[in-house]
Protein backbone atom coordinates (compact mmCIF):
# COMPACT_ATOMS: atom_id res chain seq x y z
CA UNK A 1 0.00 0.00 0.00
CA UNK A 2 1.37 3.43 -0.88
CA UNK A 3 0.15 7.00 -0.46
CA UNK A 4 -1.91 6.84 -3.68
CA UNK A 5 -4.01 4.05 -2.17
CA UNK A 6 -5.06 6.61 0.45
CA UNK A 7 -5.29 9.74 -1.72
CA UNK A 8 -6.78 7.88 -4.66
CA UNK A 9 -7.74 6.20 -6.81
CA UNK A 10 -9.45 8.60 -9.16
CA UNK A 11 -12.78 6.94 -9.81
CA UNK A 12 -16.41 7.36 -10.75
CA UNK A 13 -18.69 7.36 -7.70
CA UNK A 14 -20.54 6.33 -5.70
CA UNK A 15 -18.51 3.33 -4.50
CA UNK A 16 -15.72 1.16 -5.81
CA UNK A 17 -17.70 -2.07 -5.39
CA UNK A 18 -20.67 -0.74 -7.31
CA UNK A 19 -18.86 1.25 -9.98
CA UNK A 20 -15.21 0.29 -10.51
CA UNK A 21 -15.75 -3.43 -9.88
CA UNK A 22 -18.82 -3.53 -12.12
CA UNK A 23 -17.01 -1.69 -14.93
CA UNK A 24 -14.22 -4.27 -14.75
CA UNK A 25 -16.58 -7.26 -14.92
CA UNK A 26 -18.22 -5.67 -17.97
CA UNK A 27 -14.81 -5.10 -19.54
CA UNK A 28 -13.83 -8.76 -19.07
CA UNK A 29 -17.09 -9.91 -20.71
CA UNK A 30 -16.44 -7.55 -23.62
CA UNK A 31 -12.98 -8.99 -24.16
CA UNK A 32 -14.19 -12.58 -23.88
CA UNK A 33 -16.78 -12.00 -26.61
CA UNK A 34 -14.33 -10.08 -28.81
CA UNK A 35 -15.80 -8.07 -31.67
CA UNK A 36 -18.89 -5.88 -31.66
CA UNK A 37 -21.61 -6.48 -29.08
CA UNK A 38 -25.18 -6.43 -30.42
CA UNK A 39 -27.09 -7.59 -27.36
CA UNK A 40 -26.37 -7.74 -23.63
CA UNK A 41 -28.47 -9.48 -21.03
CA UNK A 42 -27.37 -8.65 -17.50
CA UNK A 43 -28.55 -10.62 -14.47
CA UNK A 44 -27.93 -9.14 -11.01
CA UNK A 45 -27.82 -11.45 -7.99
CA UNK A 46 -27.75 -11.01 -4.21
CA UNK A 47 -27.18 -7.50 -2.92
CA UNK A 48 -26.58 -6.29 -6.49
CA UNK A 49 -30.12 -7.45 -7.35
CA UNK A 50 -31.54 -5.27 -4.57
CA UNK A 51 -29.59 -2.08 -5.16
CA UNK A 52 -28.17 -1.99 -8.69
CA UNK A 53 -30.43 0.86 -9.83
CA UNK A 54 -29.69 3.21 -6.93
CA UNK A 55 -25.96 2.64 -7.17
CA UNK A 56 -25.77 2.94 -10.94
CA UNK A 57 -24.30 -0.57 -11.18
CA UNK A 58 -26.30 -1.08 -14.39
CA UNK A 59 -24.62 1.97 -15.95
CA UNK A 60 -21.21 0.76 -14.77
CA UNK A 61 -21.65 -2.70 -16.34
CA UNK A 62 -22.68 -1.08 -19.63
CA UNK A 63 -19.68 1.28 -19.41
CA UNK A 64 -17.39 -1.74 -19.13
CA UNK A 65 -19.14 -3.41 -22.07
CA UNK A 66 -18.50 -0.23 -24.07
CA UNK A 67 -14.79 -0.35 -23.25
CA UNK A 68 -14.81 2.56 -20.78
CA UNK A 69 -12.26 2.68 -17.94
CA UNK A 70 -13.46 2.91 -14.33
CA UNK A 71 -12.69 6.65 -14.15
CA UNK A 72 -14.55 7.54 -17.36
CA UNK A 73 -17.13 10.32 -16.84
CA UNK A 74 -19.26 8.93 -19.67
CA UNK A 75 -20.31 6.01 -17.42
CA UNK A 76 -23.13 8.18 -16.05
CA UNK A 77 -24.63 8.35 -19.57
CA UNK A 78 -23.72 4.83 -20.66
CA UNK A 79 -27.35 3.93 -21.51
CA UNK A 80 -27.32 6.58 -24.21
CA UNK A 81 -23.83 5.58 -25.40
CA UNK A 82 -24.93 1.93 -25.63
CA UNK A 83 -28.00 2.88 -27.67
CA UNK A 84 -25.83 4.96 -29.98
CA UNK A 85 -23.48 2.00 -30.36
CA UNK A 86 -26.44 -0.14 -31.41
CA UNK A 87 -26.34 -2.39 -28.35
CA UNK A 88 -29.65 -3.80 -27.20
CA UNK A 89 -29.56 -4.29 -23.43
CA UNK A 90 -31.77 -5.66 -20.72
CA UNK A 91 -31.28 -5.80 -16.94
CA UNK A 92 -32.94 -8.34 -14.74
CA UNK A 93 -32.39 -10.17 -11.44
CA UNK A 94 -31.52 -13.77 -10.76
CA UNK A 95 -31.17 -15.93 -7.66
CA UNK A 96 -27.72 -17.46 -7.16
CA UNK A 97 -27.82 -18.60 -3.53
CA UNK A 98 -24.22 -19.75 -3.24
CA UNK A 99 -22.64 -16.81 -5.05
CA UNK A 100 -20.90 -13.76 -3.52
CA UNK A 101 -23.52 -11.07 -2.61
CA UNK A 102 -22.28 -8.73 -5.36
CA UNK A 103 -22.54 -11.12 -8.29
CA UNK A 104 -23.54 -10.41 -11.86
CA UNK A 105 -23.99 -12.70 -14.84
CA UNK A 106 -23.65 -11.30 -18.35
CA UNK A 107 -24.81 -12.91 -21.59
CA UNK A 108 -23.51 -11.26 -24.73
CA UNK A 109 -24.36 -11.74 -28.36
CA UNK A 110 -22.07 -10.40 -31.06
CA UNK A 111 -22.18 -9.36 -34.68
CA UNK A 112 -21.13 -12.63 -36.27
CA UNK A 113 -23.34 -14.86 -34.21
CA UNK A 114 -20.77 -15.10 -31.40
CA UNK A 115 -22.04 -15.50 -27.86
CA UNK A 116 -20.54 -15.63 -24.40
CA UNK A 117 -21.61 -15.90 -20.77
CA UNK A 118 -19.53 -14.49 -17.94
CA UNK A 119 -20.22 -14.54 -14.22
CA UNK A 120 -18.24 -12.48 -11.76
CA UNK A 121 -18.35 -10.80 -8.38
CA UNK A 122 -17.29 -7.36 -7.19
CA UNK A 123 -15.43 -8.43 -4.07
CA UNK A 124 -14.58 -5.02 -2.59
CA UNK A 125 -12.26 -2.13 -3.28
CA UNK A 126 -12.95 -2.34 -7.02
CA UNK A 127 -11.48 -5.84 -7.12
CA UNK A 128 -13.30 -8.57 -9.01
CA UNK A 129 -13.36 -12.34 -9.24
CA UNK A 130 -14.58 -13.94 -12.46
CA UNK A 131 -16.07 -17.28 -11.48
CA UNK A 132 -17.60 -18.68 -14.65
CA UNK A 133 -16.89 -18.33 -18.36
CA UNK A 134 -19.25 -19.97 -20.85
CA UNK A 135 -20.58 -22.34 -18.22
CA UNK A 136 -17.13 -23.41 -17.11
CA UNK A 137 -16.01 -22.70 -13.58
CA UNK A 138 -12.91 -20.53 -13.27
CA UNK A 139 -11.38 -18.06 -10.80
CA UNK A 140 -9.34 -15.06 -11.78
CA UNK A 141 -9.10 -11.47 -10.62
CA UNK A 142 -8.08 -9.70 -13.80
CA UNK A 143 -5.15 -8.21 -11.84
CA UNK A 144 -2.61 -10.18 -13.89
CA UNK A 145 -2.53 -10.76 -17.64
CA UNK A 146 -4.80 -13.78 -17.99
CA UNK A 147 -5.30 -16.44 -20.64
CA UNK A 148 -8.48 -18.47 -20.79
CA UNK A 149 -8.06 -21.53 -22.95
CA UNK A 150 -11.04 -23.82 -23.55
CA UNK A 151 -9.73 -27.13 -24.86
CA UNK A 152 -10.41 -30.83 -25.17
CA UNK A 153 -9.26 -32.83 -22.14
CA UNK A 154 -6.51 -34.94 -23.75
CA UNK A 155 -3.01 -36.02 -22.62
CA UNK A 156 -0.29 -33.49 -23.43
CA UNK A 157 -2.44 -30.40 -24.01
CA UNK A 158 -1.28 -28.64 -20.85
CA UNK A 159 2.34 -29.55 -21.62
CA UNK A 160 2.07 -28.17 -25.16
CA UNK A 161 0.63 -24.90 -23.85
CA UNK A 162 3.23 -24.46 -21.12
CA UNK A 163 6.19 -25.40 -23.33
CA UNK A 164 5.08 -22.91 -25.98
CA UNK A 165 5.00 -20.21 -23.29
CA UNK A 166 8.44 -21.27 -22.09
CA UNK A 167 9.74 -20.92 -25.66
CA UNK A 168 8.66 -17.28 -25.58
CA UNK A 169 9.98 -16.62 -22.09
CA UNK A 170 6.49 -16.16 -20.64
CA UNK A 171 6.30 -17.03 -16.94
CA UNK A 172 3.16 -18.60 -15.50
CA UNK A 173 2.19 -17.01 -12.17
CA UNK A 174 -0.91 -19.11 -11.56
CA UNK A 175 -2.52 -22.07 -13.31
CA UNK A 176 -5.98 -23.55 -12.92
CA UNK A 177 -7.70 -26.38 -14.75
CA UNK A 178 -11.44 -26.98 -14.68
CA UNK A 179 -12.81 -30.16 -16.11
CA UNK A 180 -16.40 -31.17 -15.42
CA UNK A 181 -15.93 -34.58 -17.09
CA UNK A 182 -12.86 -36.62 -18.04
CA UNK A 183 -12.01 -36.54 -21.73
CA UNK A 184 -14.44 -33.77 -22.71
CA UNK A 185 -14.37 -29.98 -22.67
CA UNK A 186 -12.01 -28.40 -20.15
CA UNK A 187 -10.67 -24.91 -19.54
CA UNK A 188 -7.27 -23.64 -18.46
CA UNK A 189 -7.02 -20.30 -16.69
CA UNK A 190 -3.44 -19.09 -16.80
CA UNK A 191 -2.26 -15.93 -15.06
CA UNK A 192 0.99 -14.55 -16.44
CA UNK A 193 3.71 -12.50 -14.74
CA UNK A 194 4.03 -10.28 -17.81
CA UNK A 195 2.44 -9.95 -21.22
CA UNK A 196 2.62 -12.49 -24.00
CA UNK A 197 3.88 -11.77 -27.53
CA UNK A 198 1.28 -11.73 -30.33
CA UNK A 199 3.08 -14.48 -32.16
CA UNK A 200 2.90 -16.79 -29.14
CA UNK A 201 -0.84 -16.05 -28.86
CA UNK A 202 -1.34 -16.95 -32.52
CA UNK A 203 0.57 -20.21 -32.11
CA UNK A 204 -1.42 -21.10 -28.99
CA UNK A 205 -4.69 -21.04 -30.94
CA UNK A 206 -3.19 -23.51 -33.46
CA UNK A 207 -2.22 -26.13 -30.85
CA UNK A 208 -3.94 -29.49 -31.14
CA UNK A 209 -7.09 -29.82 -28.97
CA UNK A 210 -7.09 -26.09 -28.12
CA UNK A 211 -10.51 -24.68 -29.07
CA UNK A 212 -9.80 -20.98 -28.61
CA UNK A 213 -7.68 -18.53 -26.65
CA UNK A 214 -8.98 -15.47 -24.85
CA UNK A 215 -6.31 -13.04 -23.71
CA UNK A 216 -7.15 -10.46 -21.04
CA UNK A 217 -4.29 -8.00 -20.52
CA UNK A 218 -4.40 -6.06 -17.23
CA UNK A 219 -6.42 -2.92 -16.90
CA UNK A 220 -4.28 0.20 -16.53
CA UNK A 221 -6.20 1.27 -13.41
CA UNK A 222 -4.92 0.17 -10.03
CA UNK A 223 -7.14 -1.17 -7.31
CA UNK A 224 -9.63 0.86 -5.36
CA UNK A 225 -11.73 0.80 -2.26
CA UNK A 226 -15.27 1.64 -1.33
Amino acid at each position, binding site marked *: *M*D*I*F*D*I*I*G*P*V*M*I*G*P*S*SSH*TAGAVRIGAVARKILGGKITRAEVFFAG*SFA*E*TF*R*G*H*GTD*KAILGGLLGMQS*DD*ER*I*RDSFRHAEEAGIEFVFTTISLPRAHPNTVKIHLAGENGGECAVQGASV*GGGNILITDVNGMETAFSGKADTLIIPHRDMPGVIASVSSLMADYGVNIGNFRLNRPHKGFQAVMTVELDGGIPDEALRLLTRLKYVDSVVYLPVNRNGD*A*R*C
Partner: protein
Amino acid sequence: MLSYSSLAELVVAATEAKSSIARVALRDQAEQIGLGQEQVYARMRDNLLVMREAAIRGLTGELHSPSGLSGGDGLKMERRAQHAPLSGVFCAKAIARALAIAEYNAAMGRIVAAPTAGSCGILPAALLTMIEETGASEESAVMALFTAGAVGLVIANVACISGAEGGCQAECGSAAAMTAAALVEMAEGAPQAAADAAAVALKNQMGLVCDPVAGLVETPCIKRNAGGVMCAIAAADMALAGIKSVIPADEVIEAMRAVGAAMPQSLRETARGGLAATPTGIALKQKIFG
Protein backbone atom coordinates in the same frame (compact mmCIF):
# COMPACT_ATOMS: atom_id res chain seq x y z
CA MET B 1 12.27 4.16 4.86
CA LEU B 2 9.21 4.91 6.93
CA SER B 3 6.95 2.12 8.21
CA TYR B 4 3.80 4.25 8.64
CA SER B 5 3.00 2.27 11.76
CA SER B 6 2.67 5.31 14.02
CA LEU B 7 2.17 9.07 13.84
CA ALA B 8 5.01 9.38 16.38
CA GLU B 9 7.39 7.96 13.75
CA LEU B 10 6.32 10.66 11.27
CA VAL B 11 6.59 13.44 13.86
CA VAL B 12 10.08 12.34 14.90
CA ALA B 13 11.27 12.00 11.29
CA ALA B 14 9.92 15.43 10.33
CA THR B 15 11.15 17.15 13.49
CA GLU B 16 14.67 15.67 13.22
CA ALA B 17 14.88 16.73 9.58
CA LYS B 18 13.67 20.22 10.59
CA SER B 19 11.04 19.66 7.95
CA SER B 20 7.35 18.77 7.65
CA ILE B 21 5.48 15.45 7.60
CA ALA B 22 4.56 16.29 3.98
CA ARG B 23 8.14 16.68 2.77
CA VAL B 24 9.38 13.63 4.68
CA ALA B 25 6.51 11.57 3.23
CA LEU B 26 7.12 12.82 -0.32
CA ARG B 27 10.79 11.88 -0.15
CA ASP B 28 10.00 8.48 1.39
CA GLN B 29 7.17 7.62 -1.01
CA ALA B 30 9.33 8.48 -4.03
CA GLU B 31 11.87 6.00 -2.71
CA GLN B 32 9.31 3.30 -1.89
CA ILE B 33 7.41 3.61 -5.18
CA GLY B 34 10.64 3.87 -7.14
CA LEU B 35 9.94 7.16 -8.91
CA GLY B 36 11.52 10.61 -8.77
CA GLN B 37 10.13 13.13 -6.27
CA GLU B 38 8.98 15.33 -9.18
CA GLN B 39 6.96 12.47 -10.66
CA VAL B 40 5.34 11.58 -7.34
CA TYR B 41 4.57 15.27 -6.76
CA ALA B 42 3.06 15.57 -10.26
CA ARG B 43 0.84 12.55 -9.64
CA MET B 44 -0.43 14.11 -6.42
CA ARG B 45 -1.00 17.41 -8.21
CA ASP B 46 -3.17 15.54 -10.74
CA ASN B 47 -5.28 14.34 -7.81
CA LEU B 48 -5.72 17.94 -6.62
CA LEU B 49 -6.88 18.93 -10.10
CA VAL B 50 -9.50 16.16 -10.14
CA MET B 51 -10.64 17.34 -6.69
CA ARG B 52 -10.97 20.93 -7.91
CA GLU B 53 -12.93 19.83 -10.98
CA ALA B 54 -15.27 17.75 -8.78
CA ALA B 55 -15.92 20.80 -6.56
CA ILE B 56 -16.66 23.03 -9.55
CA ARG B 57 -18.99 20.48 -11.17
CA GLY B 58 -20.65 19.62 -7.87
CA LEU B 59 -21.30 23.28 -7.04
CA THR B 60 -23.33 23.77 -10.24
CA GLY B 61 -26.03 21.76 -8.48
CA GLU B 62 -27.16 20.35 -11.81
CA LEU B 63 -26.52 16.69 -11.15
CA HIS B 64 -28.63 14.34 -9.10
CA SER B 65 -27.95 10.79 -7.99
CA PRO B 66 -29.59 7.84 -9.81
CA SER B 67 -31.81 7.26 -6.73
CA GLY B 68 -32.98 10.88 -6.69
CA LEU B 69 -32.08 11.14 -3.00
CA SER B 70 -29.40 13.79 -3.35
CA GLY B 71 -28.11 16.76 -5.31
CA GLY B 72 -28.19 20.55 -5.08
CA ASP B 73 -27.36 21.07 -1.40
CA GLY B 74 -23.77 22.18 -2.05
CA LEU B 75 -25.10 24.98 -4.24
CA LYS B 76 -27.62 26.03 -1.55
CA MET B 77 -24.81 26.23 1.00
CA GLU B 78 -22.56 28.15 -1.41
CA ARG B 79 -25.33 30.78 -1.73
CA ARG B 80 -25.71 30.90 2.05
CA ALA B 81 -21.94 31.51 2.33
CA GLN B 82 -22.46 34.88 0.57
CA HIS B 83 -24.87 36.11 3.27
CA ALA B 84 -23.03 36.38 6.59
CA PRO B 85 -23.27 32.68 7.51
CA LEU B 86 -23.27 31.89 11.24
CA SER B 87 -20.23 29.64 10.86
CA GLY B 88 -18.22 32.31 9.03
CA VAL B 89 -17.39 32.47 5.33
CA PHE B 90 -14.45 30.07 5.55
CA CYS B 91 -16.44 27.33 7.27
CA ALA B 92 -19.55 27.89 5.17
CA LYS B 93 -17.55 27.56 1.96
CA ALA B 94 -15.80 24.44 3.24
CA ILE B 95 -19.20 22.93 4.06
CA ALA B 96 -20.49 23.84 0.59
CA ARG B 97 -17.52 22.14 -1.07
CA ALA B 98 -17.74 19.05 1.11
CA LEU B 99 -21.44 18.68 0.23
CA ALA B 100 -20.87 19.42 -3.45
CA ILE B 101 -18.07 16.87 -3.90
CA ALA B 102 -19.91 14.17 -1.95
CA GLU B 103 -23.05 14.88 -4.03
CA TYR B 104 -20.98 14.68 -7.19
CA ASN B 105 -19.74 11.26 -6.07
CA ALA B 106 -23.33 10.10 -5.51
CA ALA B 107 -24.23 11.39 -9.00
CA MET B 108 -21.54 9.15 -10.54
CA GLY B 109 -19.07 11.99 -10.96
CA ARG B 110 -15.29 11.58 -11.12
CA ILE B 111 -13.69 11.94 -7.68
CA VAL B 112 -10.55 11.05 -5.74
CA ALA B 113 -11.11 8.55 -2.93
CA ALA B 114 -9.69 10.25 0.20
CA PRO B 115 -9.44 7.78 1.81
CA THR B 116 -12.72 6.37 0.44
CA ALA B 117 -15.39 7.47 -2.03
CA GLY B 118 -17.94 7.90 0.76
CA SER B 119 -15.68 10.38 2.56
CA CYS B 120 -14.23 12.00 -0.57
CA GLY B 121 -15.52 15.54 0.14
CA ILE B 122 -13.78 16.33 3.43
CA LEU B 123 -10.11 16.72 2.48
CA PRO B 124 -10.58 18.61 -0.82
CA ALA B 125 -13.19 20.91 0.74
CA ALA B 126 -10.68 22.09 3.34
CA LEU B 127 -7.73 22.46 0.97
CA LEU B 128 -9.67 24.18 -1.81
CA THR B 129 -11.21 26.61 0.70
CA MET B 130 -7.71 27.38 2.04
CA ILE B 131 -6.61 28.28 -1.49
CA GLU B 132 -9.70 30.38 -2.21
CA GLU B 133 -10.10 32.13 1.12
CA THR B 134 -6.57 32.55 2.46
CA GLY B 135 -4.61 32.80 -0.78
CA ALA B 136 -2.64 29.65 0.05
CA SER B 137 -0.64 28.37 -2.93
CA GLU B 138 -1.55 25.38 -5.02
CA GLU B 139 1.82 23.91 -4.07
CA SER B 140 0.99 24.09 -0.37
CA ALA B 141 -2.26 22.22 -1.07
CA VAL B 142 -0.44 19.47 -3.02
CA MET B 143 2.03 19.11 -0.14
CA ALA B 144 -0.89 19.01 2.32
CA LEU B 145 -2.18 15.98 0.39
CA PHE B 146 1.09 14.25 1.33
CA THR B 147 0.51 15.14 5.00
CA ALA B 148 -3.01 13.74 4.76
CA GLY B 149 -1.87 10.65 2.88
CA ALA B 150 0.84 9.86 5.42
CA VAL B 151 -1.64 10.15 8.31
CA GLY B 152 -4.14 8.01 6.38
CA LEU B 153 -1.51 5.32 5.75
CA VAL B 154 -0.86 5.05 9.49
CA ILE B 155 -4.59 4.78 10.25
CA ALA B 156 -5.05 2.15 7.49
CA ASN B 157 -2.07 0.15 8.77
CA VAL B 158 -2.98 0.30 12.46
CA ALA B 159 -6.78 0.40 12.30
CA CYS B 160 -8.94 0.51 9.16
CA ILE B 161 -10.49 2.97 6.72
CA SER B 162 -13.62 1.15 5.56
CA GLY B 163 -17.12 1.56 6.96
CA ALA B 164 -17.74 -2.17 6.70
CA GLU B 165 -14.85 -2.80 9.08
CA GLY B 166 -14.90 0.18 11.44
CA GLY B 167 -18.06 2.20 10.85
CA CYS B 168 -18.17 5.80 9.66
CA GLN B 169 -15.51 6.81 12.20
CA ALA B 170 -13.09 4.80 10.02
CA GLU B 171 -14.14 6.64 6.85
CA CYS B 172 -15.23 10.19 7.71
CA GLY B 173 -13.32 10.04 11.00
CA SER B 174 -10.08 9.09 9.24
CA ALA B 175 -10.70 11.72 6.57
CA ALA B 176 -11.24 14.36 9.26
CA ALA B 177 -8.01 13.36 11.04
CA MET B 178 -6.07 13.44 7.76
CA THR B 179 -7.59 16.82 6.92
CA ALA B 180 -6.87 18.33 10.33
CA ALA B 181 -3.18 17.40 10.05
CA ALA B 182 -3.07 18.69 6.47
CA LEU B 183 -4.58 22.04 7.49
CA VAL B 184 -2.03 22.46 10.29
CA GLU B 185 0.90 21.90 7.93
CA MET B 186 -0.68 24.14 5.31
CA ALA B 187 -0.83 26.86 7.99
CA GLU B 188 2.85 26.12 8.76
CA GLY B 189 2.21 24.51 12.12
CA ALA B 190 4.76 22.07 13.60
CA PRO B 191 4.67 18.28 12.95
CA GLN B 192 3.58 17.62 16.56
CA ALA B 193 0.72 20.11 16.17
CA ALA B 194 -0.39 18.22 13.03
CA ALA B 195 -0.45 14.97 15.02
CA ASP B 196 -2.42 16.66 17.82
CA ALA B 197 -4.94 17.99 15.30
CA ALA B 198 -5.36 14.50 13.82
CA ALA B 199 -5.89 13.08 17.30
CA VAL B 200 -8.50 15.69 18.28
CA ALA B 201 -10.42 15.26 15.00
CA LEU B 202 -10.49 11.48 15.32
CA LYS B 203 -11.57 11.70 18.98
CA ASN B 204 -14.48 13.92 18.01
CA GLN B 205 -15.66 11.45 15.35
CA MET B 206 -15.11 8.36 17.48
CA GLY B 207 -18.03 5.97 17.63
CA LEU B 208 -19.70 7.27 14.50
CA VAL B 209 -21.59 4.39 12.91
CA CYS B 210 -22.04 3.58 9.20
CA ASP B 211 -25.81 3.43 8.58
CA PRO B 212 -26.52 4.35 4.94
CA VAL B 213 -30.21 4.65 4.08
CA ALA B 214 -31.09 2.02 1.45
CA GLY B 215 -27.39 1.12 1.41
CA LEU B 216 -26.66 4.13 -0.78
CA VAL B 217 -23.68 6.45 -0.30
CA GLU B 218 -26.00 9.45 0.17
CA THR B 219 -27.98 9.75 3.42
CA PRO B 220 -26.37 10.50 5.85
CA CYS B 221 -22.96 10.20 4.12
CA ILE B 222 -23.08 13.49 2.21
CA LYS B 223 -23.84 15.62 5.25
CA ARG B 224 -21.31 13.67 7.30
CA ASN B 225 -18.72 15.00 4.88
CA ALA B 226 -19.82 18.49 5.96
CA GLY B 227 -19.59 17.44 9.61
CA GLY B 228 -16.16 15.93 8.98
CA VAL B 229 -14.67 19.07 7.49
CA MET B 230 -16.05 21.24 10.34
CA CYS B 231 -14.53 18.83 12.84
CA ALA B 232 -11.18 19.00 11.01
CA ILE B 233 -11.14 22.80 10.90
CA ALA B 234 -11.92 23.04 14.63
CA ALA B 235 -9.22 20.50 15.48
CA ALA B 236 -6.64 22.28 13.30
CA ASP B 237 -7.40 25.64 14.89
CA MET B 238 -7.14 24.15 18.38
CA ALA B 239 -3.75 22.59 17.56
CA LEU B 240 -2.52 25.82 15.99
CA ALA B 241 -3.58 27.60 19.21
CA GLY B 242 -1.19 25.30 21.07
CA ILE B 243 -3.85 22.98 22.49
CA LYS B 244 -2.58 19.42 22.88
CA SER B 245 -4.48 16.15 22.67
CA VAL B 246 -4.48 14.61 26.16
CA ILE B 247 -4.50 11.14 24.59
CA PRO B 248 -1.59 10.77 22.13
CA ALA B 249 -2.59 10.36 18.48
CA ASP B 250 -1.41 6.76 18.18
CA GLU B 251 -3.46 5.70 21.21
CA VAL B 252 -6.49 7.44 19.70
CA ILE B 253 -6.05 5.48 16.45
CA GLU B 254 -5.78 2.22 18.37
CA ALA B 255 -8.91 3.16 20.35
CA MET B 256 -10.75 3.85 17.10
CA ARG B 257 -9.82 0.37 15.88
CA ALA B 258 -11.08 -1.21 19.10
CA VAL B 259 -14.34 0.78 18.99
CA GLY B 260 -14.85 -0.32 15.38
CA ALA B 261 -14.27 -3.96 16.28
CA ALA B 262 -16.85 -3.64 19.07
CA MET B 263 -19.50 -2.20 16.75
CA PRO B 264 -22.31 -4.60 15.87
CA GLN B 265 -22.56 -5.65 12.23
CA SER B 266 -25.85 -3.75 11.90
CA LEU B 267 -23.93 -0.47 12.27
CA ARG B 268 -21.16 -1.28 9.81
CA GLU B 269 -22.42 -0.48 6.32
CA THR B 270 -25.06 -3.21 6.23
CA ALA B 271 -27.93 -0.66 6.20
CA ARG B 272 -29.70 -2.61 8.95
CA GLY B 273 -29.30 -0.17 11.84
CA GLY B 274 -29.05 3.48 12.78
CA LEU B 275 -30.66 5.92 10.35
CA ALA B 276 -31.18 3.16 7.78
CA ALA B 277 -33.56 1.46 10.22
CA THR B 278 -35.69 4.55 10.96
CA PRO B 279 -39.27 4.60 9.59
CA THR B 280 -38.25 7.22 7.02
CA GLY B 281 -35.10 5.31 6.12
CA ILE B 282 -37.09 2.14 5.52
CA ALA B 283 -39.78 4.01 3.55
CA LEU B 284 -37.13 5.59 1.31
CA LYS B 285 -35.62 2.19 0.63
CA GLN B 286 -39.07 0.89 -0.35
CA LYS B 287 -39.63 3.85 -2.63
CA ILE B 288 -36.26 3.55 -4.40
CA PHE B 289 -36.02 -0.20 -4.79
CA GLY B 290 -39.69 -1.26 -4.57
